């Protein structure tokens, strides 16, 4: 027994503060939020609250506004993930074989990642100005300058859910595509050159080489990218806040709706929204965490 303590003791001592901190500030606070979501605490006022079971959740899912925010989130996530993957993978493919000035391209594609979503939202808010024709500003004005007037559009301010949320996703795609490029570029460069040589010797066309030899090698990277982008998108808040302000029904997602609910001091409802958001993230992340941990322990 004494030997075991000597062996594991110091390590446990180092990890203990972290386990306690995360236990309280992650898992404990999640439980706290969940608990609040089961009560009728609809004001900022302290004092005892009644438990009302799942009433807040039932109300939420019966509410047009919340369903709207969930649909917006779904469309935003699809647009963002597809857009970022297409751009990122395409850039990686273009750079992959080595081009002159690759370092310059890489740095420029990557730099938006260093910028806060508030700062980029401020700039993109102006670029996505909805005015058209004579009054056109931002990208709409640019389209008319280069003679692509037909591209002028009201961006996020009118039109369908898809065009609205795709317009919101555009700045996010601009920010994150470079990151996906870096991931895939590293992936391509990590594939042993012999593999390509062998495929070419066997007479595989370039297309077949990528389709059957290179891309399958990169599926773990694609999985990581999907999880990263997916959970970023689900939590997206600052970009929407900066571009449209927090009070737009058209672009409201659960994270924004929660903030608006908090401003009205409806604690129980805000907590319920937060828990739904957590559940959506967990559905994505828990299988990934389990998979990663299993892989690690196999080593």
């Amino acid at each position, binding site marked *: 027994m004494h030997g075991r303590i000597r062996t594991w003791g110091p390590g446990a001592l180092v990890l203990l503060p972290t386990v306690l901190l995360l236990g309280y500030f992650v898992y404990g606070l999640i439980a706290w939020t969940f608990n609040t979501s089961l009560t009728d605490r609809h004001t900022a006022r302290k004092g005892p609250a009644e438990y009302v079971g799942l009433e807040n959740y039932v109300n939420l899912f019966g509410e047009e506004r919340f369903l709207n925010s969930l649909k917006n989130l779904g469309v935003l996530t699809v647009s963002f993930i597809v857009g970022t993957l297409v751009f990122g993978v395409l850039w990686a493919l273009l750079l992959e074989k080595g081009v002159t000035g690759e370092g310059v391209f890489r740095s420029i594609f990557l730099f938006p990642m*260093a*910028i806060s979503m508030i700062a980029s939202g401020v700039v993109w808010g102006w670029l996505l100005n909805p005015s058209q024709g004579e009054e056109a500003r931002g990208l709409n*004005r640019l389209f008319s300058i280069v003679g692509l007037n037909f591209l002028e559009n009201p961006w996020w301010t009118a039109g369908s859910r898809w065009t609205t949320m795709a317009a919101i996703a555009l700045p996010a795609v601009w920010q994150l595509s470079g990151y996906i490029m870096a991931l895939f*570029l590293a992936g391509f460069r990590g594939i042993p050159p012999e593999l390509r040589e062998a495929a070419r010797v066997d007479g595989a066309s370039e297309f077949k080489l990528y389709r059957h030899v290179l891309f399958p090698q990169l599926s773990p990277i694609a999985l*990581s990218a999907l999880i990263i982008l997916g959970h970023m998108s689900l939590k997206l808040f600052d970009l929407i806040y900066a571009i449209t302000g927090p009070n737009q029904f058209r672009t409201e997602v659960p994270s924004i709706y929660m903030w608006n609910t908090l401003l009205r001091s409806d604690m129980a409802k805000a907590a319920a929204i937060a828990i739904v958001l957590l559940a959506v993230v967990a559905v994505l992340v828990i299988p990934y965490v389990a998979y990663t941990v299993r892989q690690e322990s196999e080593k």
Partner: protein
Amino acid sequence: MTAAEVPADAATGKAAAAISRKPRRGASNDGTTRVSRTVRYVLLLLFLLFVLIPVYVVVIGSFKTASDTTAAAQWNLPETWTIEPWRKAWDVLQPYMVRSLLLAVPAAIISSLIGSANGFVLARWRFPGANIVFAFILFGMFIPYQAVMLPLRTTFQELDVTRGVPTLIIAHVIYGIPICTLIFRNYYATVVPHEVIEAARVDGAGLIQTYLRIILPISISGFVVTLIWQFTSVWNDFLFALFLTQQNNGPVTLGLAALAGGQKVDYAASMAGALITSLPTLLVYIVLGRWFIGGLMAGALKG
């Protein structure tokens, strides 16, 4: 490549190095023709344009006079160049910038140090239940802050922590621990030779001694990655700032949102403000870009 493996490469700079490793140009059998090469460059330049358009807008916008920002002139270079918008934005943002610096530097250092100690233990001291602890920490990286935000505010109120910078440092350190721990865990698992640690153990050094005397001095590149990552994400954070502080004691993201989101928005000053608040992270990125790529690969797991 799993989430856990990415950081390992990144921390060693191997990822960055791998990206830098260009294939030999002009190799006869690289499957490209002159046409496809031309198409490649044309496409790349078009994408470059897409990425740089906002940069053009924000830079020229920040040097314009009010009369120069009409719809028709928005894409033109300034008629008269002025630094007035920069002065205006700086006057507003200066106290916020100081607070952000006082926040991001210590938060990055503290979470990196904790992450390093944790990472070492997780990588080298296989103990019973290690997997559970690993999953416990890994999941902490992905939680949406909304799920903890409400009680977090209450907790800080009850602890009576001064709102503003101290509150944010605590929050960012705690929620930054998972990512820092994982980066270091993989760094120590792959980079630091096992023999070094074994030798220290044989010589009778305990875990803490081994860590302080042998591991810490050879952790520099790991620290570079976590410091860059934490500094950038703390500097750019908006959600914690909004929930946990107020306008008069918040960090620079709050300042910029106020400057650019008011009723009567000054276009030129907003643009200058966006640039000013981005300069520190851009500087970090330019100076330490080589590691930044690796750091991103490791760190962007945290949204």
